């Protein structure tokens, strides 16, 4: 125990000398001042972020076994769920917590609406939050196709028909999303790239903005 304390102190001293570590810990963790009116309703944003971290972690694990081709997609997902040790755990965690994250994000939004926390000076927190909601939903939609099951396939057809109803550019938009007139292997790899690279990166940028603004402006006052 003494040894651990000693090492702890030395590491902190080292960090302190260079980066004011102790001050940072005091200001952000041990002596952080929290409003009296904060209650459990304020936890949904943080929980959404926790869900996002779970999605990143389990998603990377799934990527290690998943094969994004029409021939192998379903088989590789079944392989993960049935043969890979604890594959069922990561696969279920990924798909269930995807649904949970959507719920949490919406609860978070409802809380902000209810408290009127979107008003001046937090307008752009709301705007970035709406983008985050849309990206979360796009994540769910693009991930839904990847197991290449009947549900995924028909879900993707219906989901892509909707932008197809846009006036004038609908048909072009539909074909752009599908990578052709039909849902094919091209759509699968397209959705895969969007799901694992494009959307996560965009999401991280908006999360950064969202968090930076919260830090700058502070959490909203009591009702």
């Amino acid at each position, binding site marked *: 125990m003494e040894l651990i304390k000693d090492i702890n102190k030395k590491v902190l001293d080292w960090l302190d000398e260079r980066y004011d570590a102790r001050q940072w810990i005091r200001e952000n963790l041990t002596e952080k001042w929290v409003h009296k009116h904060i209650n459990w309703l304020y936890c949904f944003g943080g929980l959404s972020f926790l869900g996002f971290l779970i999605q990143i972690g389990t998603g990377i*694990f799934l990527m*290690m076994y998943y094969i994004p081709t029409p021939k192998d997609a379903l088989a590789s997902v079944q392989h993960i769920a049935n*043969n*890979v*040790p*604890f*594959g069922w*755990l*990561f696969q279920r965690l990924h798909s269930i917590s995807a649904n949970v994250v959507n719920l949490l994000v919406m609860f978070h939004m409802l809380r902000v609406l209810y408290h009127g926390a979107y008003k001046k000076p937090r307008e752009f927190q709301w705007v970035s939050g709406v983008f985050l909601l849309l990206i979360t939903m796009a994540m769910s939609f693009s991930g839904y196709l990847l197991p290449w099951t009947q549900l995924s396939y028909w879900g993707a057809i219906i989901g892509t028909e909707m932008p197809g109803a846009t006036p004038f550019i609908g048909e072009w938009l539909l074909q752009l999303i599908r990578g052709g007139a039909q849902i094919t292997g091209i759509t699968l790899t397209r959705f895969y790239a969007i799901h694992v690279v494009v959307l996560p990166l965009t999401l991280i940028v908006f999360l950064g903005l969202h968090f930076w603004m919260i830090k700058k402006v502070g959490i909203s006052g009591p009702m």
Partner: protein
Amino acid sequence: MEKSIEKNSSNSKRSFLKLLFLTVMGVSFGGVIYPIIRYLSPLSQQKEGEKVEILKDEVPIGKAKFLTYKGNPAVVIHTKAGFTALSAVCTHLGCIVKWLEDKGEFQCPCHAGRFDVTGKVLSGPPPNPLLQIAVVESGAKIVIG
């Protein structure tokens, strides 16, 4: 406040709670790490000393069949003299040799080492012949190992 906690630090209740806390943390941490390590570990391969069986029809005369023996690449070749099984790992730097059917010899794609059907080095940098693996013919099958 600080002082009163310090005074009780030798208290058995406090040290018990500390131990309990560390145990719970340790178990939770292990519960997360264990599935991750199992998930990332390669699926169990053939056990040591396990034999590989293939049908004779799979390797016609003059052809070679590549397979996995004890987790490493191996090759079975069928010549007029019968079946031979060799390790397919070049003894130079570990590339996998390929079978040149028209020449009846193995060539390593990395540094052009050449081996004959018995695994003997014909030319190139490999210092040793390819490892021989025992082959037993039984009916329509051959057993390697």
